[in-house]
């Protein structure tokens, strides 16, 4: 009877939807109100660029020893001075950044991929395996991460793949938990129900209906986890349980520099300053991303 008016209002709804500003535009607007986050993001991207191309353009070989020029203070020839073997500190920091990004980054990426997959399947299907998996993850989350990392490294030994594996294992449970909680609420939503009724395949529902709605959260989660991973990898390097010498790992450099502080403070100041800058930048960026994706409250 009033089919035509229904049709009309449906058309209006579509019109309203089309008139809404694009999601990206909204995000961009919010981002512009976060100057600290933008600054942090720029510094972070600069570090990333340095990690990728830096090792190709550094002034010195990071392993090249030059005993005649050992423990020289910062100068134009050596921006950050030289260490006890005459190695260029600036070059070592830049080459070291690649290791941090490689280990922390691939570990986090692995954790996000595996964790998100487990969280998606576990949340979507539910049941006993979901219950067991989540209890197990709760338990893993209630063990101090650094302890778990140390015990794991005792077993698998300090190697680069080993470190990546440790980072992935440590952060996998939390990624799975975050993903699962989102899937639990999303699978009840009308648009997922509608897709099921339309007879869409499971893969379609996962990749086209559920996952796109989790991207923002996973991005925030992942970047937060990444700054923890930098923290962890550098701490393990500092303890001598991460990457082994003569690698230019930042934590390792700081550890070696401790003994030289009173005669060569630059050995300590520059690596410590660099890692602080990277972590602060990553924190500011993550905090900004959270405000962009979740404007209300937005604090965890």
């Amino acid at each position: 009877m009033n089919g035509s008016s229904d049709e009309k209002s449906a058309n209006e709804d579509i019109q309203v939807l089309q008139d809404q500003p694009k999601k990206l535009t909204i995000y961009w607007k919010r981002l512009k109100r976060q100057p600290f986050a933008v600054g942090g993001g720029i510094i972070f991207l600069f570090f990333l660029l340095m990690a990728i191309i830096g090792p190709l353009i550094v002034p010195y070989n990071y392993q090249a020893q030059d005993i005649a020029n050992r423990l020289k203070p910062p100068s134009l020839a050596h921006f950050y001075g030289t260490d006890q073997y005459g190695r260029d500190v600036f070059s070592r920091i830049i080459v070291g950044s690649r290791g941090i990004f490689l280990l922390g980054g691939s570990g986090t990426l692995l954790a996000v991929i595996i964790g998100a997959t487990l969280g998606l399947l576990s949340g979507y299907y539910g049941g006993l395996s979901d219950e067991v998996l989540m209890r197990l993850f709760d338990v893993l989350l209630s063990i101090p991460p650094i302890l778990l990392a140390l015990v794991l490294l005792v077993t698998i030994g300090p190697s680069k793949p080993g470190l990546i594996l440790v980072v992935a294992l440590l952060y996998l449970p939390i990624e799975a938990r975050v993903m699962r909680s989102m899937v639990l609420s999303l699978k009840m939503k009308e648009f997922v129900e509608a897709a099921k009724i339309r007879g869409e395949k499971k893969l379609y529902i996962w990749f086209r209906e559920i996952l796109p709605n989790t991207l923002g959260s996973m991005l925030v989660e992942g970047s937060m986890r990444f700054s923890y991973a930098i923290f962890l990898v550098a701490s393990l390097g500092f303890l001598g349980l991460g990457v082994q010498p003569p690698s230019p790992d930042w934590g390792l450099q700081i550890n070696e520099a401790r003994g030289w502080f009173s005669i060569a403070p630059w050995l300590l100041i520059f690596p410590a300053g660099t890692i602080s800058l990277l972590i602060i930048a990553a924190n500011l960026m993550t905090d900004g991303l959270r405000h962009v994706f979740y404007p209300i409250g937005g604090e965890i």
Partner: protein
Amino acid sequence: MLRFTLRRLGFVLLTFLIASLLIFSLTEILPGDVATMVLGRFAAPSALQNLRAKLGLDRPVYIQYISWLSNFVIGKWGVSISTNADVLGLVMHRLRNSGMLALVGCLIYIPPGIFLGIVAAFRRNKWLDQIISMTSLAFIGLPEFVTGVILIAIFAIKLRIFPASSAIDPGASFIKILPQLILPGITIALTNLAYVIRMTRSSTVEVLQTEYVRSAYLKGLRPGYVLRKHVLKNALLPTVTIIAISIAYLIGGLIITESLFSYPGVGRLLLFAISHRDLPLIQATSMLIVLIFSVSNFFADIIYAYLDPRIRYK
């Protein structure tokens, strides 16, 4: 409340059990033959066999696990391979030291953390809040070894106010070692300080935005009264939990801080055990750390549920 407590207690037990399984399998089974590790690669097969029998390594794995776990529970923690000392005594002595350091750390970060968090919430989005929030955000992820090394560089080497090393005499009294606890105390406090500030701020902001606080102001109550009776009472609720959680974080921070300052605590003992591949010592220290960590999480949950009845029914 009783049901909730029992459920949480069950979770602590489960955590302990799974963690013990994990620690046992990672340290006993995966790294290969313990007997070969103790006696060396070229030991006589008969000597290896004798040691295996002595350590009970010739029994099936699950029997080994059960006897290991039950020995741990009744306090028979074995003898350290590298020092031949009784593990229980060694660990307990170190635990006392770690406890003193943790106490100093807590005193340094809890009161200022709550205070700054509340100040930031009341000056929300003003410049004072911006400064507090941004500084704490920056500090939240700085590794202990970076802040510690910077503190040593400034206060121990440049200014010579505090000692750089905290290698204390065994059995020294708390007051006597206090100067040596200040720098490591600040180091473990800084990360947690930032965390407590941020959490206190966000919970206070939440309370300040509620209807009942607004109506309290609107009906003309004095701001000081509203602060005490309406805001703080509710805002500090989550803070109690936050402090309990931060104590759990503190334990992780202790491992690195103690090693940096050569402070003889449980964390440094664990690192010593790892570098000497001293399995009984690794197992005992890591089990103890898991236990403390999950027990402090347990108390966090219980205190929160006690203060906020809504949680119990979730």
